[in-house]
């Protein structure tokens, strides 16, 4: 015989909801909790209620949210707004009260073939696209090869892995400075090795002027980034249990088949992450290129100028904010589109497991 449950008085919550325990059928082992809904709460009170209920997470996130609102959201919104204003160099500090320009800045960039800004920016767009694609592919290729190479047993493997991480620790501005020196026509190590030692070219190529410039910025970026890909892919590889391969070998699979059927599918999500990382990192690449030309004081030239360096020059050397902001907005839009595409392409890999 169970003890009877006494009906409780309804508890009224501050938001108006009620809660009561009732025992409708005294013989059965059941009780009923009745929840009374308040009479249609407004959106404000709902917000207050949720804040009160989630005090801890909101408290924990509050400083970050304030910082993001003040130092990220506010300037970003202003940046978007600036793209629609006709910026005036003489009244820089009253930037928000500049005359409204509508889509003038956008039209200037997109449709005015005589605009000097436009030609410079389209060079930068082309270079950035080629640069991003080449760097991302190169980084993944070298990173995958290196990860597979150091995922084997051999002597001094730990030292090899550490040494491979070396370029990744070098700050990017140092990478720019260093490679700006390595690519020098007469005194650079690249030409010393390629021409003086290996005699691959009949005369020393110029790397930092002309069409070769694109290679001169791609190679150092791959050099800097592949160790990170290697690290990530290696972690992915080590997540694959050994006995899977042993079982495959017993079943008669050769090395290629094992790679194709076991390693490859498991590496795909890591590749997806790395492609996203490369996309964002390389489209917004700035330090390496800005430091490589004239020891950081020069101009990359039309074959080496990237979007970030072009925009930086437009904004902070020509003080042309309107078109700069418009271009940044377009760039942001393009980036969001790319990330959306990325998500559509790799959704299965990311969520499939």
């Amino acid at each position, binding site marked *: 015989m169970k003890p009877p449950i006494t009906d409780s008085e309804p508890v009224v919550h501050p938001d108006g909801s009620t809660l009561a325990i009732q025992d409708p059928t005294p013989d059965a082992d059941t009780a009923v909790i009745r929840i009374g809904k308040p009479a249609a709460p407004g959106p404000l009170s709902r917000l207050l209620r949720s804040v009160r209920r*989630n005090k*801890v*997470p*909101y*408290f*924990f*996130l509050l400083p*970050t*949210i304030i910082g*993001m609102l003040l*130092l990220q959201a506010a*300037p970003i919104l*202003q940046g978007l707004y600036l793209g629609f204003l006709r910026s005036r160099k003489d009244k*820089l*500090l009253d*930037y928000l009260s500049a005359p409204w320009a509508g889509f003038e800045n956008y039209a200037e960039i997109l449709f005015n073939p005589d605009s000097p800004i436009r030609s410079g920016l389209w060079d930068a767009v082309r270079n950035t696209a080629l640069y991003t694609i080449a760097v991302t592919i190169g980084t993944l290729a*070298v990173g995958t*090869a*290196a990860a597979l*190479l*150091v995922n084997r047993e*051999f*002597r001094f493997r730990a030292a*090899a892995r*550490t040494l*491979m*991480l*070396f*370029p990744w*620790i*070098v*700050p990017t*501005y140092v990478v720019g*400075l*260093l490679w700006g*020196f390595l690519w020098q026509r007469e005194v650079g*190590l690249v030409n010393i090795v390629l021409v003086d030692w290996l005699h691959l070219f009949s005369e020393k190529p110029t790397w930092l002027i002309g069409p070769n410039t694109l290679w001169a910025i791609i190679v150092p970026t791959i050099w800097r980034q592949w160790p990170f890909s290697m*690290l*990530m892919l290696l*972690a992915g590889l080590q997540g694959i249990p050994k006995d899977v391969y042993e079982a495959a070998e017993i079943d008669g699979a050769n090395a290629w088949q094992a790679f194709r059927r076991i390693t490859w599918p498991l590496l795909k*999500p*890591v590749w997806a*992450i790395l492609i996203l990382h490369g996309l*964002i990192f390389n489209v917004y690449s700035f*330090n390496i290129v*800005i*430091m490589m030309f004239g*020891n*950081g*004081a*020069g101009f990359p030239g039309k074959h080496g100028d990237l979007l*970030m360096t072009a*925009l930086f020059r437009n*904004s902070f050397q020509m003080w042309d*904010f309107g078109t*700069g902001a418009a271009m*940044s907005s377009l*760039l*942001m839009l393009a980036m*969001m589109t790319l990330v959306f595409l990325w998500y559509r392409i790799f959704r299965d890999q990311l969520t499939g497991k």
Partner: protein
Amino acid sequence: MQPKSRKTFGRFLTGLTWILIVLHVVPIAWMVYCGLKDNQEILSGKVLPGRRQNEIVFLRETGRGYLAGTADGGLTLFEKKGLRKIRHLELGTFATSFFLDGERDQPGPSKGGSTLWVLSSNRGLQEVDAEGLTLLKAHGVEEIAAAYGSAWSTLWVNEVAGSSLARSGDALYLSYRIKGYPGVTSFSPASGRFSPMAGFASKKSGEIRMVIPARGDTGPDPELVLLTTQGISLQAPRSGLPGKAVPAGTLPALPERLCALDGRRMLLSADSRAFIFDIEADTVLAWLDREPGSGNITAFARAPGRIWLGDSRGATSLPDPAGMPMKAVKPSVDGIAGRADSLPVNAARTFTPGFPSLAGAGADITSLRITAILPLLDGGALLGGPKGALSLLDAAGKPVASALAPKPSIYIHWRNYVDLWRNIDFGLYLKNSFIVCIGVMLVAMVLASMGGYALARYNFPGKNLFGYSVLATQMVPGIMLLLPLYLMFINFSRATGLVVKGSYGGLILTYAAYFVPFSIWILRGFFASLPKELEEAALVDGCGPIQAFFRIIIPSALPGIIATGVYVFLSAWDELMFAWVLTDEKTYTIPVGIRLFVGNFQNRYDLMMAAATVSTIPVMILFFLMQKHIVSGLTAGAVKE
């Protein structure tokens, strides 16, 4: 696959791995190595560590023998007969010049003191006992710099091409051959003090090439002659009274080298040409007749009645034309050589040095370039050349003996780092970078662990919104918010009087807003991997959720938090664009400092690589200390996603 071939294949792969590693480490090794190298060596494309430029630049006769000094501060005493080496001292200096007390214009051993003064760009002024070849005293470059104050600041960004040292009365006068050198410095051996010489208009007078005492002036304040890229000027050093000045435009060519024949007449050389100039009358007295293609003049010497010239073919001795009747010609730039009297060629005698063959020593001296001449009493001469080669010739020009000064040690040095610190405020940039990065790191560690925990353990409305906005901030080009941020900072300062732009706080908060969202993302995964029982136990024990977080969660998540902190430190260390715009002279971080000042280095690759190495070392150390944490933290965050 057969076990044997599999083993071979494995070896092949291991070899491939190491080739890849070596290829990828080479640029870093090259960076560190070039930071320890001499720029001249880098510019000449030499890869292996070479030896210093040890051409003989100084030859004197002392009571014990011949004293030879090289441009890199090697001093050797040779026996007079047979040039056998007696003693050697290596000072390891650069752009060295020498002055022996009691030097005279006569052949024969110097009389008077036996103190040798050595001036160099790295060791300042050194005092050497010329008999025993021992270092007596050194006055570092810092002591000279102290006499100038801030005028010194960018001195060694430009390479010091040489130095010049002269004695007049009881003071020494020294100068460096360098762009923007603030003038001639005087040094009093009695008081041991340096002071800038009064009156010599410093930067207007251009690059100083030589400072020598004017001959024939034996007054109480003997004049000095200063050869600069702007011309020649005379000055009485003690009174500071300016004497005669000859602007470069008055001279037929910009002289490279100068030798005072007497109070009025100067022997000057420019490239392969040499002429005698009367500085009182501003006229060329004579052109020294030289065969076409004789090469640049590289040395001068004077003996009674004779002038000695050295070039890339040997030495020439000419009778001093003093007292010869000569037509004075006002110089004009065009066709001057044909109009002034030329010295008679038949009176010149050519001496071809018998430098020792260096084939066995791994170097070849193809040129007979003379870099120093010591006329001897018997009419012969001791000639010095590149790589420490010496040749003794008799009056007939027949080589009698030859010798080589000892090879200097291999050329790797810390000088670039010293110069870097001395020239640009690298210590300040390093300090600023550390303050900003440590500040961001601490802020990020606190905020990101709170935020990451909230995301990992709680479900709350707006969680997804927050997650998306974190991702969205990663997609915004930094340049877009940089400009409004910069203007916001300035407007805020105007409104409140609080300085934000150029303060540490402004940059730290900006970086924090940039890095914290991403750190939250990393730490979220870390907190999610901690067992829930941890804080459940704490809650049962009566802790509040916040107490539980600080008492229980933080300590158990510490490795992840530290890894995230280090990651933020490394990222902030690497940031250039925001720091460029948001700092000022007092708060420049390393990348901004490098960006601003290395641009002025032109082709000082040695200094640049030293700067690059210094900016890499702190993050390298930090990374290797924390390697395990960082690697596991980063890969866990990304791979488990």
